[in-house]
């Protein structure tokens, strides 16, 4: 029997639609993609084996520090720490990606499903960089950051993994699930000046 669909941590908080002033400004677009997220921490001296396994099974080249990469079958890897990555992909079932990764990397890494423990928000729009800069101490200018770059930093008061996915710009923001509601609240308030579109 397969598990029923879980409740999204923002299910009772994220009201779809427009927030902030009506007007000609392009709002910040916030989406809540259903992703599975798996934390992979490599065993000592098995980095090359792990990289080979993921290349073989996911057509994925593990990225280095500060970077993210997406493999041939749509799995994205983000470097999070020395010898550690998040792998994430569209949700197909409860712990489905974790099971695939475990099968691929058995004995090579510690695998933890974090699909419930981390919440991803996708934000995009021409003003996205300016809006994030209101709470982000890192330099997100194209000369310093860009598509394929990813780093963990503070947004407002909350630790967040910031991954820029394209030049719109669009960012995937991953936070601890128990802080997702307070994070969304902060994001909406911070972006309200420009307007926010959820959905």
């Amino acid at each position, binding site marked *: 029997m397969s598990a029923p669909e*879980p409740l999204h941590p923002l299910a009772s908080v994220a009201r779809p639609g427009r927030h902030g002033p009506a007007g000609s400004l392009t709002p910040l677009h916030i989406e809540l993609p259903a992703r599975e997220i798996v934390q992979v921490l490599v065993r000592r001296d098995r980095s090359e084996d792990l990289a080979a396994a993921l290349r073989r099974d996911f057509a994925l080249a593990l990225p280095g520090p500060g970077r993210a990469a997406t493999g041939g079958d749509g799995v994205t890897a983000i470097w999070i720490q020395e010898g550690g990555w998040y792998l994430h992909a569209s949700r197909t079932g409860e712990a489905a990606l974790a099971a695939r990764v475990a099968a691929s990397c058995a004995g090579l890494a510690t695998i933890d499903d974090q699909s419930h423990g981390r919440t991803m928000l996708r934000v995009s729009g021409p003003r996205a960089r300016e809006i994030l800069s209101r709470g982000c101490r890192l330099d997100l200018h194209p000369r310093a950051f860009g598509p394929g770059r990813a780093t963990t930093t503070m947004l407002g008061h909350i630790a967040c993994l910031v991954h820029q996915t394209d030049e719109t710009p669009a960012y995937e923001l991953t936070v601890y699930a*128990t*802080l997702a509601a307070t994070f969304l609240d902060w994001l909406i308030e911070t972006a309200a000046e420009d307007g926010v579109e959820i959905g």
Partner: protein
Amino acid sequence: MTQRHRLATGGHVDRARRLAFRFDGKSFEGHPGDTLASALLANGVRLVGRSFKYHRPRGIFSAGIEEPNALVELREGARREPNTRATVAELFDGLSATSQHRIGSLTFDWMSVNGLLAPWIGAGFYYKTFMWPAAFWERVYEPLIRRAAGLGRASGEPDPDHYGTMHAHCDVLVVGSGAAGLAAARAAGTSGARVILAEQDFLLGGDLLAEPGQEAWRAGMIAALAAMPDLRVLPRTTVFGFYDHGVLGAAERIADHLPEPPPHTPRQRFWTIRAKEVVLATGAHERLIAFPGNDRPGVMLAGAARTYARRHGVRAGETAALFATHDGAYDSVFALAEAGIRISAIVDPRTDSPAMQKARAAGFDVRAGSVVSGTAGRNALHTIEIRAADGRGRGSPCPADLLMISGGWNPAVHLASMSGAKLAWDEGLQAFLPGESAQRERSAGACRGVHGIGPAAADGAAAGRAAAKAAGFAPAAEFALPDAQAADHRPLPLYEVKGSKAFVDIQDDVTADDIRLAHREGFTHVEHAKRYTTHSMGTDQGKTGGIVGAAVLAEARGERLEQVGLPRFRPYAAPLTWGTMAGDAVGAHFQPTRRTALHAVHEAAGAVWMDAGIWKRPGWYPKDGDADLWASIKREARAVRERVGICDVSTLGKITVEGPDAATFLDRVYANTFSTLPIGRARYGLMLREDGLVFDDGTTSRVGPDRFFVTTTTAQAGPVMQHLEFHLATAWRELDVSLASVTDQWAAVAIAGPRARDVVGAIVEDLDVSNEAFPFMAVGECRVAGIPARLFRISFSGELAYEIAMPAGYAARVWQAAMAAGAPHGIEPYGLEALGLLRIEKGHVAGPELNGQTTAQDLGLGRMMKKKGAFIGRAMAQRPGLVDPARPRLVGLRSVDPARQFRPGAHLIARDRASGSDGRLSQGWVTSVTQSVVQPTGWIGLAMLREGEARIGTTMLAANPLMGEETEVRIVSPHMYDPENLRVRS
């Protein structure tokens, strides 16, 4: 009243539009482009405030942030803001301002009697006079003095506006947009560097705004900057501080020029700017001259009068005189003459100069070798006195309702000084200039003594190019610079014309005599004299007269001004509103809140929330019929003791520890052993800090050969993770162990009580939960309501209990399944308070006992420390102070009168009052208190008590002197409920 002092043409005001405003209840009109000060002057308003201490009448003195006098309460109601400088407040339609610091009307202030008392209330008067009786200071003297001396009033209401923050990065930050700043920004911008140009004014240009001949150049520069894609111009933005590592702070006034901020728009924004290179083009503040009566309304800095005439098209007077010590001030005379103001005299202590000759040639009455020795006029100037510079006594009268003064220029070195650059004395300019840079900054233009539009622009362009180059860019195109001759700004060093009421600080009512008094009384260092007299301590921070006070002090010390120096510059370079400092971190956004996956479930159940760190946890769930919160708490606890209860325990820290060395690692970080733990079992673990004190506790389970599931207390989840990571990364790099925080992945509920097995058995699939198959401390994978979950048989309440951990997104479903299965058994949700009640009855330690001061021995957990093998804290725990048998030990307490409350924090003292003074000394303290729901009921608690075990059975007093309480308590074993531990195994 129409604007009778407004010129017909000229300046940067839009005469086609009218803005209505009110000052002290009277209605006036101004134009866009006005400040409140320029609009008041246009309407002939000259008296704008009363002075700080003597309540002397005061007028508009400057045209910028250096203003000492024209401080007003701006706006009304909750938005009322005191101490707003009228000289920088941008006029808007409907503006309302009130003069402050007066009792009665502005023109007749009852407190001006202080002026008559002035000979007796000089510097230090309050310190010396109101010393006795000491108790009067706080309750009588200080409130009276504050009422007399204070500045404006805050609204006292919550601020209706909100405030934003911004983080910016750039290659070159240019502060100030005068000729030097514009040129620096453009020069740096042409290189392709990322440039930010911050200007505190609402118009760019600085002194260019008073130079109609350079308007085309100003406009051309602004257009060129606007075309640069990576150059950002921030008007209405004051850079207030220069901190370490190229970090500067700035306040952007987004909506202060509007009646109120548009919806969703912050009023102000706090900018944190990280710059590779900084160009400071902050200009200079004109220097006042101390002479008797230099504070009278109508006395104004020369450059300010020129700015009002040329920038705002306003005549600041009808008949003006100039008192200056250098040629740089003479353009003011020409500017005012062009504006149709009669010039009655030019007073200059020098004998001759090019500017004096030019003025004479133009037909002005130049009084060489003279000084202004006094002023007259009740609430506004009408006459000045002029005498020979080397003369004494009163001079000869000369009509003037406007006296322009200039004793030189004070370079605005505040930011350079804050960056760590030492100041260097320039004898010619009689000014302190920025010395060698300590950070990657450079000054350009008047802030480093380069005066005049042409020279400042050239200096700025050079600084901009140098900054871009230093940031790794190659400056490209040249651009035209203004070709303007600069007057000689080197003054004759005349700081003071001696006499009564010669102010060195007009805002704080500090006279030259006060400085000499401070010196006589031993406050001879410039920092001490500043604090003794309050010189330079107002909102203007001595921008116009700080150096004048230092010069008076230098003369008193018989030293050169260079040796005396200036008080240290510190943030903020200009006043900053508290709202901007707080930013968006106010109210509910003061800190983030953490919500468990069951938040909505608790909310629906009517939980009363409690804060546990940043977590929101249900405190209790009130029901109709509960008399008070204790009724709810005890009802929930009784449900657990008698039937079954369910509690959200998701906030506990959870860590995956995996790797071939995981068991070895846990043996080293825990005081007890984990390598012997079988798969499918949990064990209570105790962690010590490196210093041997208890760090944290929790249950850790073995879920695979090399995989453990560690839990921590809610409070220490983060610190424990850091502790584990730190030791793996430093001390034990040879261990192959991985750590993953899974606190958020797993939600967990405790199901506790004699009927817990009935409930758990009904919802758990794929696992035999009988006592035989799944005994106390068993762990197993299972499914609950179709959901993959993990079952633990652990207990914090002392009852038969289970914890179910499940992926967080399923927590609500599991909770609902348990509630449904438990309904026939009378299940009730219980909150943090009942959880605490149950663990205190059982004698389990928690945060109040694990307070970073207690050892395992103190807590009765000494036996957990393994005899063999090293672990963190082992060695330090053997220190004599930590193994001293006299240390307070954990005990239980029962109120002798069960109905009599005692409180955590109370101290335990001997009951016998006759036992001498020692008996009244604290023997220990109460850590946790609750009301027991099992017999015998009543107030119980836990405590740390000296010779605790020996005292069991005796009676002591729990004393709380703060609340005047003393409660008799019996010392008992901490294990007040089921000491044989039978129920958890049943």
